[in-house]
């Protein structure tokens, strides 16, 4: 209303002021996420010195979180360009089913069970991208719908059951470990490095951040908006599908119930990641730190005997706080 002073109101007097209240060097809030991670690890190591700071626990956490981390990456890519992809969790589900289905129904070789689901994920991403750009559907709605379709397909094929027959041990080895390092964590690490470089060091990353900030300005400066947007959804779908293949390899089965519970943690990680390293900006390394913070926290609480239902509660609260700090009321306070 007219009588309220809007925040967008350009304040010419204040606009040139230096960044107020921001700590310099080690006190800069951009490092707080790292400190939180260290503090959590130290705290639980003191509380549970026998079980928490162990190699076993570390590899367990890395192995468990690899899929979630990849899913967070899948969410991250279109989010940079300003679009939500809610279909990723169900794409992951469909991909698991496809992967194991290749063995159960067709006795296919292992490479087929890896490639086909990823192609399916890319196809769903393509549909998302076309729906958002060419057809002009809001990305929340479009991806909610395609995600529902993906889940529907998965349930149709499995008829609600779990696929687990004819899974060769070679496939399950893909979800195992190599010299003590869990392979899923290795895949996630490779993905993280590639996405980090692409988003921070390559021109395409610049274009995506520009696109997410002001799509019309991006179009007028000659950035290929449609192509890039579709590209982000294809990449997102492919990553989600690959995460599904990895999950299938870890479990040795395809379970249509697995995916949906992974969506919210991915959101929590990406938005919390936006408060780490680069304030108010989604970024790869911040997201990785956020995944680790959440994992270390939940893992520690579980060791203290806190009940299982704390985890979703905690992740919900973290998501709210993270969004408040990146885009909500408190973002200005922190980025000034």
């Amino acid at each position, binding site marked *: 209303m*007219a*009588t*309220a002073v809007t925040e967008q109101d*350009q304040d*010419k007097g204040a606009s*040139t*002021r230096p960044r107020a209240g921001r700590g310099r060097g080690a006190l800069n809030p951009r490092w707080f996420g790292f400190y939180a991670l260290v503090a959590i690890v130290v705290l639980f190591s003191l509380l549970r010195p026998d079980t928490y700071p162990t190699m076993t626990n570390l590899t367990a956490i890395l192995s468990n979180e690899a899929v979630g981390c990849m899913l967070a990456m899948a969410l991250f890519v279109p989010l940079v360009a300003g679009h939500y992809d809610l279909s990723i969790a169900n794409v992951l589900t469909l991909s698991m089913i496809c992967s194991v289905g290749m063995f159960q129904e067709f006795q296919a070789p292992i490479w087929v069970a890896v490639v086909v689901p990823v192609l399916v994920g890319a196809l769903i991403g393509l549909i998302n991208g076309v729906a958002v750009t060419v057809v002009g559907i809001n990305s929340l709605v479009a991806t909610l719908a395609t995600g529902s379709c993906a889940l529907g397909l998965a349930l149709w094929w499995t008829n609600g059951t779990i696929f687990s027959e004819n899974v060769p041990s070679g496939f399950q080895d893909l979800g195992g470990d190599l010299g003590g390092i869990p392979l899923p964590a290795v895949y996630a690490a490779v993905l993280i490095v590639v996405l980090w470089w692409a988003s921070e*060091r390559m021109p395409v990353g610049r274009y995506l*951040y*520009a696109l997410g900030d002001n799509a019309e300005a991006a179009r007028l400066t000659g950035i290929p908006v449609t192509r890039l947007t579709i590209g982000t959804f294809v990449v997102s779908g492919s990553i989600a599908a690959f995460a599904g293949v990895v999950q299938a390899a870890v479990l040795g089965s395809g379970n249509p119930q697995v995916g949906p519970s992974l969506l919210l943690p991915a959101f929590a990680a990406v938005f919390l990641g936006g408060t780490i390293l680069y304030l108010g900006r989604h970024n790869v390394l911040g997201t990785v730190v956020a995944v680790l913070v959440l994992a270390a926290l939940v893992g520690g609480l579980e060791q203290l005997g806190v009940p299982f239902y704390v985890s979703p509660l905690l992740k919900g609260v973290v998501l709210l706080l993270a969004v408040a700090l990146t885009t909500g009321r408190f973002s200005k306070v922190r980025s000034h």
Partner: protein
Amino acid sequence: MTSEGASVVALSGIRKEFTGQVALDDVSLAVQAGQVHALVGTNGSGKSTLVKVLAGVYSPERGSVLIDGQQVPHLTPARATELGLRFIHQDPALFPQQTVRDNISIGSRYRGSRGVRVDERRERDAARRALSAIGVDDVSPDVRLGALSQSQRTMVAVARAVQDLQGGQRIRLLVLDEPTASLPEHEAERVYGVIRDVAAQGIGVVYISHDLSPLLALADHVTVLRDGKLVASRSSSGLDEAALAQLMVGEEVQRATSSTSRPGEVVLSCRGLRGGRLQPTSLEVRGGEIVGVAGLLGSGRSTLLRLIAGSQPTDGGEVLVSGRRVPPGKPAAAIAAGIAYVPEDRRAQAAFPNLTLRENITGAALSAFRGPLRIDERAERAAVRALLDEFDVKPRDTEKQFRFLSGGNQQKAIIARCARLAPEVLLLDEPTQGVDVRARAQIHEAIKRLAARGTAVLVVSSDFGEVLDLSDRVLVLRQGGIKTTIADPATAQEQHVHHLAGTA
């Protein structure tokens, strides 16, 4: 209309700091009932900060706010509303999809209705009363706001702000921040009329604008701020535009000198170009030539630039740059052909508010710094710093978030972005809209410098004086076609252009 005696609202000795930087230093302001009080100053002079102190958004470090001579110790936005202080901002927070009636009633929290049901009839009556109280009778409360012209929307915003007069509440002050920034002159006139009506009801009006000549005609009293300090507070009589501009800037403002470059070959040519509002239009611009486009809102002036820049699909005709045909409707193709475009609406179409100044400037073309896999950020920073110096963008901080720059500096940065492309053709739509006199002169200089390098320049502005000052040749657009060409703008009268364009 100036009345002697106690002021309705006064600020005295206000000091406001933002972590070490002084935004306001010992500034006083006294507004009488029924007075139109102009508040002027360049971007960053502290006008908006002062308004926010009045609105209770900022609490000053020193000084006091006085209402009817009584000190108000802790002014909050809610308290300011209660005391009858009303504010209309540049972007007046209207709802284009709703009716005029709803837009007005939202301001009164649907006082005419009960919580469970909106009483359409009473809200409509309230809206009509609020509109007619400020002399607006041609706006129906039932039309969608989006169907109204810009000036009518501004009037709806004013009606909403002062409607409590009908409810018996005393409105003491109405503050308008650049209410006519994007209006053509004859529409702005109507807003001025409304402002006079508001003042006639005994409300003090604080009016902020960069458009100095109508402001002088409208205001009774002028307060000038410069770098957060009070420079002058005096009656507007006997003050002319040049003197006021000098007070604002503090040094002699140089009137733009016309360009000295000699036009070269034809660089941009349009043949039978049409689309949107634009009828088939042909024109040619030579390298080094600045061609102005004068026309009213709706004359097709902005459409012309959008069609050439590829931001809007064409219905026919073609655009050639140095004889090569440019594929229509594709901004990327236009840029590849050497066409750079500064769009009309900086905030919506040009700025990346959350990215850095550096990223805003280099965003369009990274080719100079990119290897196949990475960007050479050091080279990028150096190039951006050179551009910031050349175009005098302040602050010289390449990593500053773009949204923290003032409007004039944002605009200079956008022009720097275009200059970096070394374009053959530069299109500018309202390049100095909402920009202070100093930035305006700098932007004019920058445009001339680019023309001197052999760029063909096409400038649209609703300020016909600016078009005449800047251009080597002026095209007058009317109802979607070129009505006439003014070959010698240096000697043409601004009034004459208004006549040709259809205003007077």
